């Protein structure tokens, strides 16, 4: 039998396929190696609210960037090539722009088409809080606002990480006060001040806020969660000297507003990712 055209075709196909399979194998081995590196590296990448475990997040995120687009203060960014397999996945750099919950409805979680940011627990938390409110108040009071009740519960449900304060460089811990704008000139980060006097509906630039504090307590007063997350503690040393220091509580959501407004050195407050986020 002579070689027919289809015979040559088949041989050609098999030859090329073999090369393709080898190439795929190489990509696979490379990807697996990168993934191991990735899980280590990405512990430092602060994920947006509601992110599932890093193991799942790596594949659940399809890198569409919808969360980036919906964030009103552009806190979420996409990771670059240096983050390996995390390339194109969303993260938050709280020192540059923290998540200050000024969206009020956690749209980044809701918009995620693949539940890499999982909305269901947040929805449940909101509903539970609403039911609890209705039980406690049979007749709704003056300031009855079902959306605000659910929004507050959803914010509190967030666990991006936990703030950790380095007391060595903390102004308050060293008895220093603070005056002026918190960050260097040209800093573009924004947030919505929880100060009821300002009545901000939209986030404003960090440096638009002028402070004058005898003992620096910006991280405490500007926290969007409030006293369940961070408080100023007064302590007395053995020699009778009184000093105050900010303390992180269980309610901390890891949003990073304290990191952003801290006028001290950059690593005075950092957000540590939890083992199981």
């Amino acid at each position, binding site marked *: 039998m002579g070689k027919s055209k*289809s015979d040559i*075709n088949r041989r*050609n*196909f098999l*030859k*090329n*396929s073999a*090369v*393709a*399979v080898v190439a*795929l194998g190489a*990509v*696979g081995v490379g*990807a*697996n190696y990168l*993934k191991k590196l990735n899980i280590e590296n990405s512990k430092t990448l602060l994920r947006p609210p509601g992110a*599932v475990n890093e*193991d*799942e997040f*790596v*594949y*659940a*995120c*399809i*890198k*569409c*960037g*919808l969360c*980036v*687009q*919906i964030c009103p203060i552009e806190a979420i960014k*996409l990771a*670059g*090539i*240096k983050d390996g*397999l995390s*390339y*194109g996945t969303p993260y938050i750099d709280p020192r540059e722009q923290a998540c200050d919950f000024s969206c009020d409805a956690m749209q980044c979680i809701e*918009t995620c*088409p*693949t*539940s*890499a940011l*999982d909305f*269901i627990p947040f929805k449940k938390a909101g509903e539970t809080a609403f039911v609890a409110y209705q039980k406690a108040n049979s007749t709704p009071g003056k300031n009855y606002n079902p959306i605000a009740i659910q929004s507050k519960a959803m914010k509190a449900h967030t666990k991006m990480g936990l703030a950790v304060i380095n007391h060595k460089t903390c102004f308050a811990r060293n008895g220093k006060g603070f005056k002026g704008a918190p960050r260097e000139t040209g800093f573009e980060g924004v947030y919505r001040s929880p100060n009821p006097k300002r009545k901000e509906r939209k986030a404003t630039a960090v440096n638009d806020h002028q402070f004058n504090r005898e003992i620096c307590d910006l991280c405490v007063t500007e926290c969007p969660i409030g006293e369940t997350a961070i408080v100023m503690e007064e302590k007395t040393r053995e020699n009778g000297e009184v000093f105050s220091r900010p303390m992180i509580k269980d309610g901390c959501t890891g949003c990073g507003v304290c990191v952003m407004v801290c006028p001290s050195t950059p690593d005075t407050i950092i957000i540590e990712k939890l083992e199981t986020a």
Partner: protein
Amino acid sequence: MMKFKNLQPIPAKRREDMPNSKLGITFKQWKAKKPNKNKWRNKRWAVLVFFNFLFWASFTFDIGILEGSLSGSRFFGIYLMDPYNALQEMFISSRTGYYAMLTTNFFIGFFVILMFYFLMGGRTFCSWLCPYHFLAENAEKLHNYLVKKKKIKEHSYNIGIKYIFWVGFLLLAFFTKTLVFETINPVGIISRAIIYGPGLLVLWVVALLLFEIVYSKRFWCRYVCPIGVTYSVLKKVSPVGVQFDLSKCGHCRDCQDVCLVPHELWFVKRGEATKEIHATGADCTNCGLCVDICYGDALKLTVKGFDKIT
């Protein structure tokens, strides 16, 4: 040809009997027969640029018409999902048992895209929307020029290996539990580069393009890209496509010269066609280049069965 083994080719006509043949006219007259040469190409590039611009504008000016990127987006609130990404996600979740990410919006996006490209002719995505195609199409022209000038040699492979890659990347996703393909996918990389600003991975796309220019024509689109393969499956059953009318053909084969996937126009060769009316196969991207160049209107972009109604 191998696709219609059982069908015998229709005997070729004499050249004198063919309409629209080059016989007996000058080159100038030949060219003058079809003045508006780039009608479909211009339309297609306009659509491609418009939608990629809309992605960029939706984010930059916050107008929210077409949010997201080509791997997943929302068009006026309707979710759209890259079908190959969706398949990978389903594969991975079947391994890990974590199904939470297969949300309602995920399936809405998946099925809306499948329905849309079923109606629009499958690989229509490639030539009418894919930004990498736009670059590669122009790189191909440069490649052809270099081959013509004998600066480089053409290297071609068996087009069947794209199915190997299609299965292979799915298996890789399954075994490594990551979206391996999405990390090296030039479509997603360019789309994100347009919308969110370029990153270092754009260099990978540049390397691919250079490879296509100096070594193998349209390497990625022809032999690798599993997104295109996914759409080509839809193209098999889609009613939209390029239709070939043997009675109008002069067998000049200019269409095969401009075609981006010439193997799909096998029936234009004299004495090859087995039917009076042929439709292009799965790899045809409905780009309309052949329609533009055809001097006798033998090739047309049509909806199957539509001409019978009107």
